[in-house]
């Protein structure tokens, strides 16, 4: 039996009608496409208005339409509107097609005749396509109420707390021995200058004690299976060699441990730590971890000092890595950033010359709990600097390294200038290309630091050298730069240089992304679902991103994203189940030859292979509907709902007006 198709052409005021002769289009459809099943064709001022929608609903009920085509704006705008309208009238929403004659016709063309002709062709394509549409039911999957948060920095902490306070269980996985992330290493936070630790540690403690949070530090996610609402996540708990059941965190083991190594994680290489250690005093959890590769016992089989002195016999040299699996409904990725390594810019002398610090090293240097107890001094540990140079944009805004702006370096450098001024009264030079202070009371902070007498020199530093060309340069670090505002070459001798190194994606961001089925941009940051309207969701349903994994950002923005991600998940959990667009691929087992070509094509590993029956099968909930497998299947055994071969081939014929009389079509094509 042939379909009864209703065609509706929208004027969109004059947006469409101004260029496209909408009346002609609807008449053309009514007559020329009659034998294609079009029983009614109308045009109306605003199809999306309630009156316009009622028009459709009325026709569906009275004329018994089996298909609907609306020629109006982009489906991204109103597809849902018209589909719901059809649903109200008892027609399966997926039997309604929206073709764009505004964004892709009236707004981009000027010749009325040609535009009208194209509108007709586009419409005819829609009609041919809709004939092959199938009634679909949206997929509903239950949401597991537990969530996983990966990364224990401030973003992850925020997300975890919001979720837990909302009464949902959270697994917080952190690969370091303690949560806290970069923020725990900072001294002060701009622009308010409140002590980073003072505002962070309470949150960390909350996480530690929260009944709804399972804290898994010194652990890493190794495998992610399943799909939104029903993830199954494998986590490796690395051996701590400390039985946390017995350990009281008294710290005697650390005290007694005879061996020290450089701590290049928390202290950024600025200080040493014991081989068995608690990363920092306020660490959560407060259990020590034993660094086996460096441990004398593991190297030589002797020592065991920690074990001897432990009052509760909590040291366990036989502890092994432990693999656990958890079931969660949603995931937040908050794995943060790595610092750009200034060694990559040899002319800045980092690692070659004394008294050149990275931003992170300097944070430790002026941190009260840091190696110098917060005294800003040169490498000799006593002399305070008389002049300090702070270099902005190190590794950022530079095609030789990272093209993007790291967003926080300007404010960070200005903060450093203030701290140095406050604690040493030294002469300070900031070398910048542009000053970027786009945040609440950021500009005011900049003004304040200007007011403190810090020199701001506009110019990208050419090099930092110890080679003196004049007596006053002897024994100093000389910063060579063009002061672009006065157009003069300057060589500025300083005692200390701080390199405001940029932010980079984690070295292993790509692999992590693969693990969770999300993609990295060219820069290496994770791609959000929409850069403006959906910055925390990803293309993988149920996986969210928060903080610097999505791109460089300051603490407030990071916290906001953590909270936002949590709120999104909260909502999903409340719904109990989620509906997925039924645009999915499915395999007809009778046609499947079991060649397995499709298996490796799927980036979401939604296709599993049944050895026994030698056929492949697609997990509808995992499938994202890209259709690559459909196109690739040599046996034509895979079909994609919503984008089937029939639909597309028919649309091609429609667009080329094969469906109507040739003489006529010539006229239209011309």
């Amino acid at each position, binding site marked *: 039996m042939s379909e009864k198709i209703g065609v509706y052409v929208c004027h969109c005021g004059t947006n469409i009608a101004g260029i496209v002769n909408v009346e002609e289009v609807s008449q053309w459809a009514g007559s020329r496409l009659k034998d294609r099943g079009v029983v009614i064709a109308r045009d109306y001022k605003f199809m999306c208005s309630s009156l316009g929608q009622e028009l459709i609903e009325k026709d569906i009920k009275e004329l018994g339409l089996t298909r609907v085509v609306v020629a109006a704006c982009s489906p991204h705008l109103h597809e849902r509107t018209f589909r719901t309208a059809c649903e109200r009238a008892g027609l399966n929403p997926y039997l309604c097609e929206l073709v764009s004659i505004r964004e892709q016709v009236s707004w981009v063309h000027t010749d009325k005749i040609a535009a009208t002709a194209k509108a007709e062709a586009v419409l005819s394509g829609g009609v041919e396509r809709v004939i092959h549409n199938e009634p679909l039911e949206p997929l509903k999957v239950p949401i597991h109420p537990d969530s996983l948060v990966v990364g224990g920095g401030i973003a992850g902490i925020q997300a975890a707390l919001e979720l837990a306070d909302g009464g949902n269980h959270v697994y917080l996985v952190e690969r370091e021995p303690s949560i806290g992330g970069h923020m725990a290493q900072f001294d002060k936070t701009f622009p308010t200058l409140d002590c980073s630790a003072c505002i962070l540690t309470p949150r960390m403690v909350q996480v530690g004690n929260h009944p709804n949070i399972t804290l898994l530090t010194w652990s890493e996610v190794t495998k992610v299976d399943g799909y939104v609402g029903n993830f199954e996540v494998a986590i490796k708990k690395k051996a701590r060699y400390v039985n946390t059941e017995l350990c009281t965190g008294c710290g005697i083991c650390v005290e007694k441990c005879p061996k020290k190594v450089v701590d290049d994680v928390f202290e950024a290489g600025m200080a040493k730590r014991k081989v068995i250690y608690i990363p920092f005093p306020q660490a959560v959890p407060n259990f020590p971890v034993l660094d086996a590769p460096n441990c004398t016992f593991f190297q030589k089989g002797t020592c065991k000092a920690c074990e001897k002195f432990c009052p509760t016999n909590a040291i366990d040299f036989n502890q092994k890595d432990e693999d656990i699996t958890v079931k969660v409904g949603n995931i937040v990725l908050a794995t943060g950033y790595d610092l750009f390594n200034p060694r990559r810019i040899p002319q800045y002398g980092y690692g070659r010359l004394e008294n050149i610090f990275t931003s992170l090293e300097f944070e430790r240097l002026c941190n009260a709990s840091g190696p110098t107890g917060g005294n800003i001094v040169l490498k000799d540990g006593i002399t305070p600097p008389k002049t300090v140079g702070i270099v902005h944009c190190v590794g950022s*805004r530079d*095609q030789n390294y990272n093209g993007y702006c790291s967003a926080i370096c300007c404010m960070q450098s200005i903060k450093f200038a203030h701290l140095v001024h406050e604690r040493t009264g030294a002469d300070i030079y900031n070398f910048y*290309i542009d000053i970027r202070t786009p945040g609440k009371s950021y500009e005011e902070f900049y003004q304040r630091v200007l007011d403190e007498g810090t020199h701001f020199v506009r110019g*990208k530093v050419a090099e930092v050298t110890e080679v003196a060309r004049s007596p006053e340069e002897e024994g100093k670090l000389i910063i060579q730069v*063009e002061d*672009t505002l006065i157009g003069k070459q300057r060589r500025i001798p300083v005692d200390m240089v701080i390199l405001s190194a940029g932010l980079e994606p984690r070295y292993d961001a790509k692999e992590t992304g693969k693990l969770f089925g999300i993609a990295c941009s060219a820069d290496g940051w994770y791609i959000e679902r929409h850069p403006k309207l959906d910055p925390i969701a990803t293309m993988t349903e149920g996986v969210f991103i928060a903080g610097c994994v999505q791109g460089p950002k300051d603490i407030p923005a990071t916290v906001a994203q953590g909270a936002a991600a949590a709120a999104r998940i909260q909502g999903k959990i409340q719904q109990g189940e989620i509906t997925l667009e039924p645009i999915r691929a499915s395999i007809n087992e009778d046609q499947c030859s079991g060649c397995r070509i499709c298996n490796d094509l799927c980036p979401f590993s939604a296709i599993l292979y049944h050895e026994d029956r030698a056929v492949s099968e697609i997990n509808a909930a995992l499938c994202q509907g890209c259709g690559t497998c459909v196109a690739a299947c040599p046996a034509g055994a895979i079909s994609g709902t919503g984008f089937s071969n029939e639909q597309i081939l028919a649309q091609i014929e429609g667009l080329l007006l094969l469906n109507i009389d040739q003489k006529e079509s010539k006229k239209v094509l011309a």
Partner: protein
Amino acid sequence: MEAELTFSREIGNLMYASHGNPIKDCLQCGICSGTCPAVEFMEHSPRTLIGMIGADLKDEVLASNTYWSCASCYSCTVRCPAGIDIADLMYALKRYSIWKGKHEDLIGPAFSEGFVKMIVRTGRSFEPILAPTYLPRFKAIDLFREAQTASTLILKGRMPLLPKKLKGLKNFQRMVKRIIPIGEEE
């Protein structure tokens, strides 16, 4: 819609290998000037010159001695954060100024032209032929020193008195003429 020919476009068209050089991407950060070993001898720093090109100050740019002071050491090129091959840009300006016959005052242009003419004549570079192209512009004392140096070099056997010529010189010259019509005086 043909955009009008700005100076920066004109110059861009003179840089084939660097695909016109992304001059407009310049951040005016000044790392080129800060790096340049000859900057103290330039009327305008490389950064300023690029700015002037962007501002379409054609005459001022061509009048500047900056590009003739470039030693083509490429230090700026490798450091430019915008990926501009500044040394190549300087070459382009040199070409432009030679064509427009600017800078009779400087040695650079005469030297380059003399050099090329010599190559076209013999196929090899050879100081004694080259010297006359620039020596006249030297001060007497400098001339004397040049001569001194030359004679010592000759004694050390480091300066042959007869130029070498290519065997396939005729072909060579026809080849050159395929590219540019200079060396006609042959």
